[in-house]
């Protein structure tokens, strides 16, 4: 691009440069994989196929996850006439583009995990094979009844089950045993005692409400919604439409604003990444905080032993509640063989226990049989999460529904939610104003039949 000294820059050359820059600019925003008209309907139907099935899975845990998961997939021995399976791990970075491009270009996997709301986005576009047939086939065996109560129904849409629950992404309250001891307080049981513990922690220079909502950190958003659910609120009504400005939500956000104003929240939390937040836990600056169920494992070492999951807090209305994401496995319409895909799905769910028994860092399991293993039971925090938090947790669809649906994609790690969260954590507006602004954005984006 640099011109040699003395070489004239011609108008034509310049326009070429400008044109190139123009194309590059536009391309920044149009990586849609082209086509757009892909119907994706070449379902394998009733027959088998020699074309291997593609199974794409995400890095759900630590570095141990990939070899363990790959080993499970590669150990699959298909029945005669059924296709084999190839395994690929997809990184979280730009995963929406990865899957969307693949679906648009017809190069999608036969079966995959992915983002918690991904199946519902693709379902609305007719790219998903409903799991009804698969789930029905499991009813004759032990697998169907092995799922934790109510979990399968979180996947239900008006046309069928969009996916099958795979692992649970929970938001729970952790505290540092040593810091609470140092502050001379017991773990909180409700919102009021939570504030008291925060006040005690503040006296020793520790923040009681550890959270983060910076680049790539969406836990802060999740926590705010979790507090709304805890107070009987949430973001959507029974018709899947946004309904943010409710007394329950205003009260919950006022509570958080109070925590911020009292100095119980790190003023930098609105822009902390997950790595920043972890460094604060390790530095002993966070004494309590709502985070994923895997926080202790992620921190590792001595910090892991010091962290304890509390029982769910009782909200001002006397209710308990939390937010969770039933991460799932979905099947795509375009695949070499639907019977082959379902056969592999059955195999995978029947044999995926090592992902938990080998402590790969994946979120809590969806199956009671895995919860019952001695390895899982050896972790008291994990047991508490399943025993106390999972039964009271609801999806982003709360309070109207305890399912996931298309309009949930408007609040799952979106700029609107990011702005809302940073507004609250920075105490930049009143609860009602922040919720009203959120409602306005979500209403503009929500689909009437979402």
């Amino acid at each position, binding site marked *: 691009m640099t011109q040699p*000294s003395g070489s004239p820059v011609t108008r034509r050359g310049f326009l070429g440069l*400008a044109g*190139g*820059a123009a194309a590059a*600019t536009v391309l920044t925003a*149009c990586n849609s994989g082209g086509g757009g008209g892909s119907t994706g309907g070449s379902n394998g139907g009733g027959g088998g196929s020699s074309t291997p099935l593609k199974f794409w899975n995400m890095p759900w845990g630590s570095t141990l996850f990939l070899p363990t998961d790959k080993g499970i997939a590669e150990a699959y021995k298909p029945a005669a006439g059924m296709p084999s399976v190839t395994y690929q791990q997809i990184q979280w970075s730009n995963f929406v583009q990865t899957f969307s491009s693949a679906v648009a270009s017809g190069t999608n996997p036969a079966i995959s995990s992915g983002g918690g709301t991904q199946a519902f986005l693709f379902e609305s576009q007719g790219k998903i094979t409903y799991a009804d047939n698969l789930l029905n086939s499991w009813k004759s065996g032990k697998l169907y009844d092995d799922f934790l109560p109510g979990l399968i129904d979180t996947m239900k849409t008006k046309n069928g089950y969009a996916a099958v629950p795979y692992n649970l992404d929970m938001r729970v309250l952790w505290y540092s045993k040593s810091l609470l001891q140092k502050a001379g307080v017991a773990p909180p049981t409700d919102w009021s005692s939570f504030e008291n513990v925060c006040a005690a922690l503040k006296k020793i220079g520790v923040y009681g409400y550890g959270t983060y909502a910076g680049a790539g950190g969406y836990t802060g958003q999740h926590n705010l919604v979790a507090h709304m659910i805890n107070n009987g609120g949430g973001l959507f009504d029974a018709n899947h439409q946004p309904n943010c400005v409710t007394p329950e939500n205003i009260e919950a956000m006022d509570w958080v604003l109070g925590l911020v104003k009292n100095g119980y929240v790190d003023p930098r939390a*609105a822009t902390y990444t997950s790595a920043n937040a972890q460094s*604060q836990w390790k530095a002993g600056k966070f004494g309590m905080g709502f985070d994923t169920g895997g926080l202790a494992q992620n921190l590792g070492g001595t910090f892991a032993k010091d962290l304890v999951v509390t029982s769910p807090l009782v909200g001002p209305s006397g209710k308990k509640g939390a937010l969770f994401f039933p991460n799932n496995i979905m099947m795509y319409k375009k695949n070499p063989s639907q019977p082959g895909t379902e056969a592999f799905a059955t195999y995978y769910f029947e044999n995926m226990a090592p992902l938990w028994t080998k402590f790969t860092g994946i979120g809590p399991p969806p199956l009671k049989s895995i919860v019952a293993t001695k390895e899982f039971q050896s972790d008291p925090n994990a047991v508490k999460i399943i025993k106390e938090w999972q039964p009271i947790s609801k999806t982003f669809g709360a309070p109207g529904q305890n399912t996931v649906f298309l309009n949930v994609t*408007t609040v799952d790690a979106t*700029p609107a939610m990011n702005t809302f969260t940073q507004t609250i954590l920075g105490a930049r507006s009143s609860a009602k104003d922040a919720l009203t602004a959120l409602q306005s954005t979500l209403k503009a984006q929500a689909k009437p039949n979402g």
Partner: protein
Amino acid sequence: MADTITKRVGRAGRGVGSGGAGRAAPTKASRVGHRGVTLAAFAIPSLLLLLLINLYPLVYAGFQSVHNGDLISVGDFVGLDNYVAVLKSPDFWNSAKFTLIFTICGVFGSWLLGLAVALLLRTKIPGGGILKVLLLMPWIVPVVVSATAWNFLVATPQSPLPVIASALGQPNVLFLADPVLAQITVCVFKIWISFPFMMIMISASLAAVDPNVYEAAAVDGATSWQAFTGNTLPIISRSTYISWILMTIFCVNDFPTIFLLTQGGPVGATTSLAVLSYQTVFADMQTGPGVAIAFLMTLVLVVVSVILYRQIRKVEVE
């Protein structure tokens, strides 16, 4: 003999060799035509490639910008509704404002720093070669690494810059969490990343300057400042305008610098048009408005670049 040669040349001109009549030598017009075909044969594969790589996505993006689709389906034709919606959106204008600030800071901040360093490097310094390589590091190192390093520098209370600020009596400087400070931090980050490019451009220009120019100025009694404003700046003006054009394009299109450090936050304070376009397409799943933003960016970028290019022409004429 001369006659023989003349005849031979004449025969050759008519295409008649010693063996008898052959094909006539091509006329000037046919030679030009032949050459054109040959050149076209060489150029067509490249042109086709360019069309496929650049024109098709460009046209398709234009197509998307007038539809209400998403990442998978094209959606319905909506005419210019996406453009109207984008232009009416406060988010767009807030992002445009920040993009302007970011670009002005990025272009002139990096130019000033690059100029200062380039002038400094003209003097003989021990270990100057190593210093030059070190100064190039911000430009060479992948942005992911730089962003992580800057996050380490400013994000938490234990980070070096907050610690220094605290030691200076400012314990609560929120480099990323305060909207105004976050804008400043992102702009400084951009200047830090970009100044080596400016340094190279200016160093190359300065290297071509005859030292006699400065000696003559000194003999005429010019001060250092007069030599700088009267000699150095006019001499490097052409490369300066070119570097401004390029840096303007780099800044307006810059996505990773901002996205990796702040993801456009807090509360959208550092959301540039490139980040807004990305978020609209890939987070909000609204391809039409997102691509419309990109097209509007492109339009402004071309206009600004043309104005700067005219300035280069003006300098050439002068």
